């Protein structure tokens, strides 16, 4: 039963994940580099995710925080380059968790957790076996070595007669399947959890969650997202499409026949989220995570598309050709002075050390003097917040719609012109917290401003929708222009015009 866990596969999909993950996390971490002292040091303002618990790591002084952060950047660069890959992955995991947990506000989000999972899981793969500095070093070392050295460095199954031919196919080890299997499980859990969360929110189905998320300045969207927020019908469709996609992805990504299609759809789905919302690195990170479903055959297909030929890893993995190796390449340097590993290590540390020192000094210098840290609140602002005046009633109403028939928190049908005698449905979406019930008056006026109907209702603070239906047949209203007014607390909150036709 456990055999599939211990099966081996081509390391190339894992290598693609490693490079992608490293790039995304490096991009994210580099953007915070100017704020290290503020976010992660005891000299700044750490806002830990779990204050006062065992999950609150200690905040270090500014210099050490900058050094640790520099180490995080180095390790992420190591992940991208595949240099000391496994150590880089584990260091990146430890430092991301440590520093991330110190800053719930600007750093640690749910997608950070996805990144942590991937860092750990990839450290168990042979993602450094291809497209990495490690692999290059290893091949370079073995090219100059003899048969015994090859065996000592990991290729223990290589026989005396064919070790040179084995080296020609790089003697690259295969990667265990189980880390990417667990990554696939995590992705399915992510989609399933997202579905559960959305199903629990009644306001998701009517598009409200998406609409107000798009309007939110923290997570909301740019121009496209804002436009989408003004399209109630599209929001409903997009909300249902999201749920349908997440349910489908949970299942169909595992089905061989639908895997590729779902992968493409999922990448498109996350790309659209990235365009519509401001959710940090969530979208690129999920696209990288989805690569856990990538297979060697997909890469081979891509290679064919680009007319490049490489090792038939799929065949190697299933044993159709001789498996050139089973052991991992050693990460240990050969032990001679002048070895590229030592040279690169020294260069790395020297460059990094200088850079760290430079940035530490720069960050320390950029901190304002104690007297400049706080500014006096201007008179207008202090007067305003002391007054703390309540909002105008019209600001409690987000949207008003009229139609000839009503649906689930929407109105449909005609919305400007109605036949005489028909019923005009009005639906209003409220907004902002209200502390007490609002007394509403639904008023119907004619073009001359004469009040024809007035109905009083009370809107409890817990309700976010209010609707009403005006009967134009009792008493029969003539054709013409009319106006619906919603008054709250004696003021007109919203108004909408319509026309009755013969």
């Amino acid at each position, binding site marked *: 039963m456990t055999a599939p866990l211990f099966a081996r596969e081509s390391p190339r999909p894992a290598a693609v994940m490693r490079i992608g993950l490293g790039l995304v996390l490096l991009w994210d971490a580099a953007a915070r580099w100017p704020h290290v002292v503020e976010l992660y040091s005891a000299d700044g303002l750490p806002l830990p995710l779990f204050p006062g*618990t065992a999950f609150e790591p200690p905040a270090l002084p500014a210099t050490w925080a900058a050094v640790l952060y520099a180490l995080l950047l180095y390790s992420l660069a190591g992940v991208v380059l595949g240099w000391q890959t496994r150590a880089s992955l584990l260091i990146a995991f430890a430092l991301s968790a440590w520093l991330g947990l110190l800053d719930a506000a600007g750093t640690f989000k749910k997608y950070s957790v996805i990144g942590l999972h991937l860092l750990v899981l990839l450290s168990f793969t042979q993602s450094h076996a291809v497209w990495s500095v490690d692999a290059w070093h290893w091949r370079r070392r073995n090219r100059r070595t003899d048969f015994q050295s090859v065996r000592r460095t990991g290729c223990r199954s290589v026989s005396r007669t064919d070790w040179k031919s084995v080296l020609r196919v790089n003697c690259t080890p295969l990667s265990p399947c189980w880390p990417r299997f667990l990554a696939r499980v995590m992705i399915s859990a992510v989609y399933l959890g997202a579905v559960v969360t959305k199903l629990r929110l009644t306001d998701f189905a009517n598009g409200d969650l998406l609409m107000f998320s798009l309007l939110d300045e923290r997570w909301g969207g740019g121009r496209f997202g804002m436009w989408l927020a003004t399209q109630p019908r599209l929001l409903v469709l997009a909300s249902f499409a999201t749920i349908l996609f997440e349910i489908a992805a949970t299942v169909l990504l595992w089905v061989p026949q639908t895997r590729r299609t779902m992968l493409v759809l999922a990448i498109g789905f996350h790309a659209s989220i990235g365009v519509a919302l401001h959710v940090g690195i969530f979208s690129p990170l999920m696209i990288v995570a989805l690569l856990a479903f990538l297979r060697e055959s997909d890469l081979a297909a891509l290679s064919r598309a680009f007319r490049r030929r490489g090792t038939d890893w799929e065949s190697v993995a299933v044993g159709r050709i001789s498996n050139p190796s089973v052991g991992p390449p050693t990460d240990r340097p050969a032990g001679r002075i002048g070895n590229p590993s030592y040279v690169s290590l020294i260069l790395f540390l020297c460059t990094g050390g200088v850079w760290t020192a430079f940035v530490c000094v720069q960050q320390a210098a950029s901190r304002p003097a104690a007297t400049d840290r706080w500014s006096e*609140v201007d008179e207008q602002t202090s007067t305003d917040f002391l007054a703390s005046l309540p909002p105008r009633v019209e600001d409690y109403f987000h949207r008003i719609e009229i139609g000839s028939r009503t649906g689930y928190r929407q109105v449909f049908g005609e919305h400007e012109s109605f036949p005489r005698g028909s019923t005009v449905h009005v639906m209003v979406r409220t907004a*902002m917290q209200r502390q007490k019930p609002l007394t509403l008056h639904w008023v119907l006026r004619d073009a001359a401003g004469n009040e024809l109907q007035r109905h009083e209702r009370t809107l409890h603070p817990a309700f976010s929708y209010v609707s009403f239906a005006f009967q134009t047949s009792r008493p029969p209203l003539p054709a013409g222009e009319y106006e619906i007014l919603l008054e709250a607390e004696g003021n007109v909150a919203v108004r909408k015009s319509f026309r009755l036709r013969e």
Partner: protein
Amino acid sequence: MSTLTPVERRDAGLNGILRWIGRAGVLLFCTAYLFATAWFGVRHVLGDSLSHPGAYFFTWDMFPGYVTETSRRMVVGHTWDGRFVKLLPENSHRFRWGIHNDVSRVDIDRNPRNLERAIERSVGEYNRAHAKSPIESVLVVEQYWPSRFNLPDDLYRQSYGEANPRRRYWRFIDVPIDIDAVGRISNPSVQQCRISNDECRMNDEFRNPNYVSTIRHSEFVIRSSFGYRHSSFAHGRIGNPSYGSLEGRAP
């Protein structure tokens, strides 16, 4: 093509034992990972998503809610000489978030404990730097507005048929916080406010419109007279006994 014998067949003895241990470790890790995923997944389905801080690492509850308004939080310190000083976000806090890159961390993180700590820290540092006019009380205020005002002008006009008014409102988020000599918060009502800042409101006395109007009209007069300012501000209105100790203190 030569015959490559699998290592599994060739290795024996110690290597075999080590490999067996390795496989057992892998099996254990996979089992633990799958169990944690399943366990916290079921807890999430049941609605108990935060049973343990560890649940955060296995619970996938993206977009758990929304707000219909946008807000900007500010912690204001009221100094001994009657000035209002913006304590948080302070000028050195330059990290910003959001689509317009203007949301401070105080606006993102709403954990009251973190806010409490940040206030303690800011007040302590401010008072050390301004010993002659220390912070005597702290207000947490929030500027807020309906989210629809975030729409660009053209989209707003298209949707609502009028220009975007971009009105802004203010409210008090927390109770006034008393600060002792070393910057610790001593008001017990703040200590009790653990669940959500939004549930913590100003007490009715402080929100009394008469009080507010008194402050509004007398604010700039009071500035020129410390004694009058404190006796009026402290005793008559807030009703907090700790303010009584301010009287007679030298500026």
